């Protein structure tokens, strides 16, 4: 039952701590973001199964995320992050190919020179002996091989000299003409190498759940599976849980006045079924199961990714010694948690509750002393 670690610290089984005599193994989610494809099947499945109302058809103007985050009407929410970084040790396209790198710079030069590649191709007969590779037209038009310089291209080459040069070297042309390698056009910031991070966010079902601790009606409760669920027939919408959650998960539904969040499909769990989101996930990014086993599986996956060079892979919420005693729903991330909108070091607020009550008692005492002093010291 109640133990020294009921408010914070390591707790083996929150269900047992909540008073269940012989609870089933603790259930949870392991969300492996390295295989998430951002399909949002989890969001849809969750809404369908739990009859969660629509959360507004918004265009948020940031990445491809138009859900924006978790809330009363979004119990799963897929975050999309666009970054100018390659994934893992991925290198530039075609870097090791015999043809050399992708012609990104060349492509930039071509665009900068205002050359219509299709027009040039039809006029010059690219690849035809005697024709001129488009690459060189672009290079000359922009005054050399891009910004690097020092490559020996004649920067002052005029059209006539180029034409004669082409004639001279026409025989030496060995193929591989101005065929543009498939490199993305740079964006406004000049970035080309980029990656997408996607993560299906969800209620963490904390070992030490602040929302549950502060709920004044007992509407929030710990299930036998160690998850945290709101009883909507009891919730009176006081909103305390909303302020208490260190992850910003639970929220009040405006039209309804009550607080709502992921139940980890409590109704399905009771039937031995898999939660809707995990069932719908096509890439097994969302994995459901016994928490102990999931933690093991997650560590193996992290190791596997590190072995192949994805050293930025890290687990989040897996540690039973963290500020919330470990999450029931934890993640494998490819960047720091705050990049996904997660707090880097969440702590359950009730950890400090005993100290708060002590300070309150002293302050109340000070108030009494103040009144007594005022009564005695009256002039």
């Amino acid at each position: 039952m109640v133990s020294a670690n009921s408010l914070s610290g390591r707790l083996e089984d929150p269900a047992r701590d909540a008073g269940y005599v012989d609870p089933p193994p603790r259930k949870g989610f392991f969300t492996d973001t390295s295989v998430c494809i951002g399909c949002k099947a989890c969001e849809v499945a969750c809404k369908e199964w739990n009859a969660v109302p629509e959360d507004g058809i918004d265009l948020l103007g940031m990445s491809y995320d138009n859900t924006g985050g978790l809330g009363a009407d979004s119990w799963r929410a897929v975050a999309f992050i666009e970054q100018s970084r390659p994934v893992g040790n991925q290198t530039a396209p075609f870097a090791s190919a015999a043809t050399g790198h992708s012609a990104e710079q060349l492509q930039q030069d071509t665009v900068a020179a205002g050359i219509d590649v299709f027009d040039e191709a039809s006029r010059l007969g690219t690849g035809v002996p005697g024709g001129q590779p488009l690459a060189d037209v672009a290079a000359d038009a922009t005054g050399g091989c891009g910004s690097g310089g020092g490559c020996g291209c004649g920067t002052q080459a005029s059209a006539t000299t180029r034409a004669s040069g082409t004639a001279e070297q026409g025989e030496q042309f060995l193929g591989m003409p101005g065929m543009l390698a498939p490199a993305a056009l740079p964006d406004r910031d000049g970035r080309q190498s980029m990656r997408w991070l996607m993560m299906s966010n969800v209620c963490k079902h904390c070992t030490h759940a602040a929302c549950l601790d502060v709920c004044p009606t007992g509407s929030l409760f710990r299930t036998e599976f160690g998850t945290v669920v709101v009883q909507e027939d009891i919730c009176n919408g006081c909103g305390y849980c909303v302020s208490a959650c260190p992850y910003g998960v639970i929220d009040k539904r405006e039209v309804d006045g009550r607080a709502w969040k992921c139940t980890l499909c409590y109704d399905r769990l009771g039937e031995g079924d898999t939660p809707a989101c995990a069932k719908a996930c096509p890439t097994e990014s969302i994995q459901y199961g016994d928490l102990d086993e999931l933690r093991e599986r997650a560590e193996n996956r992290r190791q596997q990714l590190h072995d192949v060079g994805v050293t930025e892979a890290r687990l989040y919420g897996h540690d039973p010694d963290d500020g919330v005693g470990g999450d029931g729903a934890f993640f494998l991330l490819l960047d720091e948690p705050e990049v996904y909108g997660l707090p880097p070091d969440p702590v359950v607020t009730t950890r400090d509750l005993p100290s708060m009550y002590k300070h309150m008692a002293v302050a109340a005492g000070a108030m009494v002393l103040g009144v007594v002093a005022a009564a005695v010291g009256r002039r």
Partner: protein
Amino acid sequence: MSEQPQMKGLRPEPLPSQATPHQAGQPDRPGTDPVGGQAARMWSAGMGRRRQEGGKRRRGDVNAVVPEAEFRSYYGRAVLKPPVWEHDIAYYLFTGGLAAGSSMLGAVANLRGDVGARRGLRLTALGAVGASAYFLIADLGRPERFYQMLRVAKPTSPMSVGTWILSAYGPLAGAAAVSEVAPLLPRHGVLGLARKVAGPAGALAGAGAALTAPLLATYTAVLFADTAVPSWHEPYRELPFVFAGSALASGAGAGMLLAPLAQAGTARTAAVIGAGLELTAAHRMENEHGLVSEPFHTGRPGRFLRTARALTLAGAAGAVLGRRSRLLSAAAGASLLAGSLLTRVAVFEAGVASTKDPKYVVVPQRQRLRDRGALEQEDHRAEDGGAQQHSAPETRT
């Protein structure tokens, strides 16, 4: 025509200009925002960043001390949900404190036989506690279900604790106030008996209310501190003292406003003590918590706190100087009441503001991790430049 060392179409070595920005071993492009994409552009355009008010640095402006925080976030979106509580709750903080302060001073007035002061304070307490109940219930998402609060008594929920404190205090304060009608009752008959009983019963109820009042005044600090709201949680050691002092000052303000000059002595001394307690604790709250103290200085909460401080100081000064002037005494009382109300609204709004900017969550938590040294290595690599973290081939095998 200069010679061309390279043959057309044959490039054995990649040209330097063709190196991609994220080739192995090359540092990340400078100026690339860690968030990337749209957020990077918004960030470099200055969007999503707090603007300094008026662009000038005031004395006491924490921005002058705390450097512009560098942190990463999900497109600048908040990590936390802002409290769903409306300003009702800020007003409740004030009315609850006012009721508590009034009850305590009312009990003193009763002991000293200051009937005029007692009557004013008891009626203030009843009015304030009634308003408190209204604000609390009105703020619920489902007001008709307020009674669900009474189905459990839960020490881990300050709101549950507060409900029970209020349930004990409210009727006692009410009974004490109702006993003030005694002089209006006839001297004989059943009502005459009530008139006789009213005095002692009122004294007893008033004493009970005065005993529970300090809890009522201070539990609200725990109510706010026991959240993930950075600017409410971090000052959890000072907040009970701020609220205790503010409650005492507001109760004393009511006393000075309502009581005859001769009976307002206790209130005047209490006003000075309460104001001193409030201002001392608030000073710590506003300055001891680094970045998390910032919302107490900026925007509306900052203005409100500065005004509140001026009003409270003026009220305390008036309490000392206004011993001979009913008008000055009343004005000082009103000033204390206004100061207390503004303090509560400012604390409320500062907390709300601290949930809306992710920096108040991310920066202190990152600092905490750094202090713990848990991310020591990662941080080193992050500081050296983001790309190396992903691209240095010699670090892995």
